[in-house]
């Protein structure tokens, strides 16, 4: 009885959670322009979406920004993790860690507003007219990616034996060489997860971008926002449906291949 009730409860909550998304996907194929009447299957909204120059540019911008900001953030965070790992002063270490976490603790809107004020002040100072754009977006995205990147890499360093690097140096490596040939290979998994995390965070961000972008540099979430501010656009349904489908495919692929690998391992051992 209890088992049935718990299953029933899960079913209801998941059904409610997915109802809007399913309705959105179904109506993205609707022939007519109605939210409530399904008049026939058609791909016309998808066609409209792919002919929309603005949407394609926004997608391109999003991808460029996500790649650049995740690479920069991960690069900075990797060296920062190395520096923090070898740092002896506990207080400096603690201070650096807690300041880095500020963008993670703060609501996005405060982070966005604070960066906007910085950029406004700098733009006024150098009398720049067109200051907001790719540059400001890149700085903002790198900044909010940093704490997540550092959090993915730091634990890898903590697992590492400090004497490894010292041994390499005793055997004649320079500290830099010791890092690149001894420590770096060990922390690669952390670097990969930092890259993936930053990439998705950057793709997904709307609030911070909203404050530091300009109309001539739009990312995909900003485009969706601008399109949905006033009226309902059915090509947005198509876009949303596509995004949901892509994410589902990725999640299932990651999950599925994960279990295949585990099975392989299990079979290999047995």
């Amino acid at each position, binding site marked *: 009885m209890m088992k049935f009730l*718990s*299953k029933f*409860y*899960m079913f209801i*909550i998941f059904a409610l*959670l*997915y109802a*809007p*998304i399913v*309705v*959105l996907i179904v*109506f993205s194929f609707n022939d007519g322009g*109605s*939210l*409530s009447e399904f008049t026939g299957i058609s791909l016309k909204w998808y066609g409209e979406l792919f002919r929309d120059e603005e949407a394609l540019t926004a997608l391109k911008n999003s991808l460029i920004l996500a790649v650049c900001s995740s690479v920069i953030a991960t690069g900075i*965070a990797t*060296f*920062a993790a*190395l*520096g*923090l790992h*070898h740092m002896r002063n506990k207080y400096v270490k603690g201070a*650096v860690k807690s*300041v880095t976490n*500020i963008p993670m603790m*703060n*609501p*996005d*809107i*405060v982070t966005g*507003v*604070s*960066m906007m*004020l*910085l950029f*406004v002040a700098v733009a006024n100072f150098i009398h720049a007219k067109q200051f907001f754009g790719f540059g400001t977006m890149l700085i*903002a995205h*790198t*900044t909010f990616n*940093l704490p997540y990147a550092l959090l993915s890499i730091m634990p890898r360093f903590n697992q590492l034996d400090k004497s490894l690097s*010292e041994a390499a140096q005793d055997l004649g490596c*320079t*500290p*830099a060489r010791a*890092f690149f040939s001894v420590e770096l290979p060990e922390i690669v998994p952390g670097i990969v997860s930092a890259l993936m995390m930053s990439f*998705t965070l950057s793709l*997904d961000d709307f609030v911070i971008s*909203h*404050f530091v972008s300009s109309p001539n540099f739009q990312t995909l*979430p900003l485009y*969706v926002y601008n399109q*949905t*501010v006033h009226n*309902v656009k059915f090509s*947005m349904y198509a876009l*949303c449906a596509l995004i*949901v489908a892509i*994410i589902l495919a990725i*999640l299932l692929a990651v*999950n599925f291949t994960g279990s295949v690998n585990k099975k392989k391992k299990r079979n290999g051992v047995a």
Partner: protein
Amino acid sequence: MKKGSLFQKMAAAPHIVWMVLFIVAPMLFVLYFAFTDADGRFSLSNISTLSQYGNVFVLSIAFALIATVVCLLIGYPLAYFMARSKPKTQKLLMVLIMLPMWCNLLIRTYALMALLDNGGLLNSFLESMGLDKLRIVGSDFGVILGMVYDFLPYMVLPIFTSITKLDNRYIEAAHDLGCNNIQTMTKVVLPLTASGIVSGVTMVFVPSISTFYISQKLGAGKIDLIGDTIERLFQNTSTYNVGAVISLVMMILILISVWIMNKFSDDEGGVII
């Protein structure tokens, strides 16, 4: 003991410079704008305008609290049942709970609005049944529903993680020692998963109190929360200063509540997703 080399010492330097320039300096600019007028002179007039926004603050805090409590009440049992299901089902349920988290917030809110809107599927269904239309979009209920819908997965996942980490033997021991189901729940399971609850509550409360897209879409522009106020004030150069004060107050409010929340759990960082 070897002394740290120059390379190791300098490795964190780019990070520290970046932090000072783009995390510390922006915060100082918020402070600067909060305590100056539009001409850049020191002024406390922004602080005194805060009283005008008192009801906005009260409304936002109330909405965020209600949404957080509802998420906890719905999310805890869900996480518990998920954690008690078979490993294979668990994996599928994890994907199901994570998929909405990976979808952009705008998309989820937009989808919910499309379903509940005046001309949406729900209302035309009610109409065809001969019932009255529900005016959810544009009401307080609509905005809170939007918060619960959007942020429920953020509540479920950390709680789910802490329940799966819970050793089943604790529950068995409690039963052996004569606890009934309810006692086991309140005396063993809930306290041991407190860290998950704390991170879940934080992850729902912070975005709820600062949102503006949800109140714009599901409030149909009729409901004004702190997020909407800040967003509006920063569209016009002359109101940057008032906007900065409101952001500052919200930041302090949230830091205090997060700090209080963390007092409740022994876990250092909580669960970060």
